[in-house]
């Protein structure tokens, strides 16, 4: 099947610019890019005024399968990804059982091949059971298809274990994605420590709980030479630590989740459990620092940390609710509304953080639209508006703090390997 995407603004993620050209897809790969390509026998998509982007890659999602299928499955999670404009996701290993051995990684890949609508890249655990004690068989995991290592959801508490993990992973050329949280500073905290935790009477999580661990892992990254990608940075201090580490030449990259550049801890007022997320929503000063970090390149990647939970789990007292919100289907809208419309990033810079940079960190193909590349493409209407309605989510998760919010920037089409998996907000079956 041939597909001709005509007249769109092609996003060049390497040069960070837009070019008005046609894209011809044939047999799953990009056959031609150029002006006024002939339509001969191809399905034509008129992309005038739309952005034609390399397929978006969300390098931080929780698909919940195996073990927590009531929250999400590989099928529902990848449908949510397709609806959100993502052609690939990297899934975190905190499933049950934990993806700490090759058979779980293979299981995920098999399920993804059978019922996944987009590409799935498993991230395997750093330590067995993500317990922070014994290293996983990293070579075996890589062989099975794991693209990186993380104990996400939990920090690797023991610095000695983390150091050995980094030494071993760097030998295998695997990136470590640390979830930075010093538990002794978190205690029973459920939201950012500050004015609002004082008013709401909720136990606070200080910014220092994240920053202490970011600092430790940066020191260990320098010490071991391991490539480290800091997951979900949320504080001004973390951004500054990463900035200085990069200046020093340490192999570090980092990501931010859309809710962390959109919301502050003020949103917790009213105790909506959809605002309970780890790391927590921070202050407006942190949001400003994150935007600065995105603009100056300190923050490489935008990833959602998509964390679905059931309605019943979230319909409880704030302190008892699980951490996490769903992000796949609101990410593009939040990026365009909060970053592109406001001039923090150009649309091409934003797309680079949603595709090319994630591909680079994971060492997977994608992020570039060029002849001969496989045809993973996302078409976005940067001007269209849409109100967030969780009832329309393809994800099983409804836990979003953005319900009812009007977002500008709508993914219109998702193409994976030349196949249209989402068109006009409808996911293909």
């Amino acid at each position, binding site marked *: 099947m041939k597909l001709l995407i005509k007249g769109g603004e092609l996003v060049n993620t390497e040069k960070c610019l837009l070019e008005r050209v046609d894209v011809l897809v044939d047999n799953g790969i990009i056959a031609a890019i150029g002006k006024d390509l002939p339509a001969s026998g191809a399905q034509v998509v008129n992309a005038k005024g739309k952005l034609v982007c390399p397929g978006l890659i969300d390098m931080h999602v929780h698909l919940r399968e195996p073990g927590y299928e009531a929250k999400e499955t590989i099928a529902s999670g990848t449908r949510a990804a397709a609806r959100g404009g993502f052609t690939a996701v990297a899934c975190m290993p905190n499933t049950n059982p934990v993806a700490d051995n090759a058979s779980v990684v293979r299981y995920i890949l098999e399920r993804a091949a059978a019922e996944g609508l987009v590409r799935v890249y498993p991230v395997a655990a750093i330590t067995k059971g993500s317990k922070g004690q014994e290293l996983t068989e990293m070579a075996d995991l890589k062989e099975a298809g794991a693209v990186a290592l993380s104990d996400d959801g939990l920090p690797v508490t023991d610095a000695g274990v983390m150091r050995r993990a980094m030494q071993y992973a760097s030998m295998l050329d695997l990136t470590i994605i640390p979830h930075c949280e010093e538990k002794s500073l978190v205690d029973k905290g459920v939201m950012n420590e500050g004015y609002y935790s004082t008013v709401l009477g*909720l136990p606070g999580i200080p910014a220092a709980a994240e920053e202490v661990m970011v600092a430790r892992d940066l020191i260990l990254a320098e010490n071991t030479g391991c490539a480290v990608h800091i997951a979900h940075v949320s504080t001004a201090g973390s951004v500054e630590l990463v900035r200085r580490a990069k200046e020093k030449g340490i192999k570090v990259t980092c990501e931010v989740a859309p809710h962390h550049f959109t919301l502050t801890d003020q949103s917790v007022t*009213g105790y909506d459990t959809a605002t309970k997320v780890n790391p927590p929503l921070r202050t407006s000063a942190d949001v400003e620092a994150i935007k600065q970090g995105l603009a100056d390149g300190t923050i490489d990647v935008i990833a959602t940390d998509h964390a679905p939970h059931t309605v019943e789990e979230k319909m409880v007292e704030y302190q008892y609710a699980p951490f996490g919100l769903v992000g796949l289907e609101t990410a593009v809208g939040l990026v365009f509304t909060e970053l592109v419309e406001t001039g923090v990033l150009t649309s091409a810079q934003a797309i680079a953080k949603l595709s090319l940079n994630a591909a680079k960190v994971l060492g997977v193909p994608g992020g570039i639209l060029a002849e001969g590349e496989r045809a993973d493409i996302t078409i976005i209407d940067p001007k269209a508006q849409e109100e967030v309605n969780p009832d329309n989510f393809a994800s099983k998760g409804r836990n979003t703090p953005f319900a009812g919010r009007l977002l500008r920037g709508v993914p219109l089409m998702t193409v994976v390997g030349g196949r249209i998996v989402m068109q006009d907000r409808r996911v293909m079956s």
Partner: protein
Amino acid sequence: MGLQCKHMLGLQDISVQDIEKVLDTAKPMKDIIGRKIKKVPTLRGRSVVTVFYENSTRTRMSFDLAAKYLSADTVGLSASSSSVQKGESLIDTARTVEAMGADVVVLRHPASGSAELLAKTVNCAVINAGDGLHEHPTQALLDMFTIREHKGKIKGLKVAIIGDILHSRVARSNIWGLTKMGAEVRVAGPATLLPPEMDKLGVKVFTRVEDALEGADVVNVLRIQLERQKQGLFPSLREYAQLYGINKERIALAKADVLVMHPGPMNRGIEITAEVADSQQAVINEQVNNGVAVRMALLYLLTGGETVETTY
């Protein structure tokens, strides 16, 4: 006439008029308690359900008596915190209460925001009898009632709140209420027991208790939970008593007619010496009595607030 607010969840979002109305209504209610036959038919046929996820015999009895003096039917639902872990959710409890036809639910719960969650779920009025570290509005209202009774006003008074501010819902409700009514509020406690950015609540924050006591009209001494020491929040009870214990010498820094308050139960010899607790300046037992009156006023106002029956 009733209140502008449908529920009593906290004093942060309550209007000055509503606070004044509760305090004004508590006065005739207190008269009822002073009578030989302490019962009026005002809430006959109405039902009040108390749901306590935390033990607090005092608060529960206070609400129970308040409801009974007004002739309401009362039911107590005891749900231990462990039932929360068993998956018995607050929402389930709320539905049960609603099915019972409650007019008012009184909730005591260890989680902040639980009263607000309950209010979103049920149609009847909800009174927050203490939710986590968040608010304990009826305690603050009875404190304010007591202050007004003795001082004739609240505006312009200097009120010092001493102790574990971090874990105190009493302190938070008092701060909102008192600052709204025009008092100058100071808080003092060890740095590890002071929540961050407290000054943005419109209070003066001290770590030296003497600074907070200087010229105070009212001193509200909070109960220190012995388990906080085990959590490492301060080194020892001995040191706490030495630095923050309200004793005769320290109370002398306040005005001569200072009012000494305590939400009870007291740890005598730790946060307050027996000498001060039993002194003329202390109104701790009066607070208990006023608690019933204030809760009567609230029950009455939240159920519509038609004419108070005072004719027998």
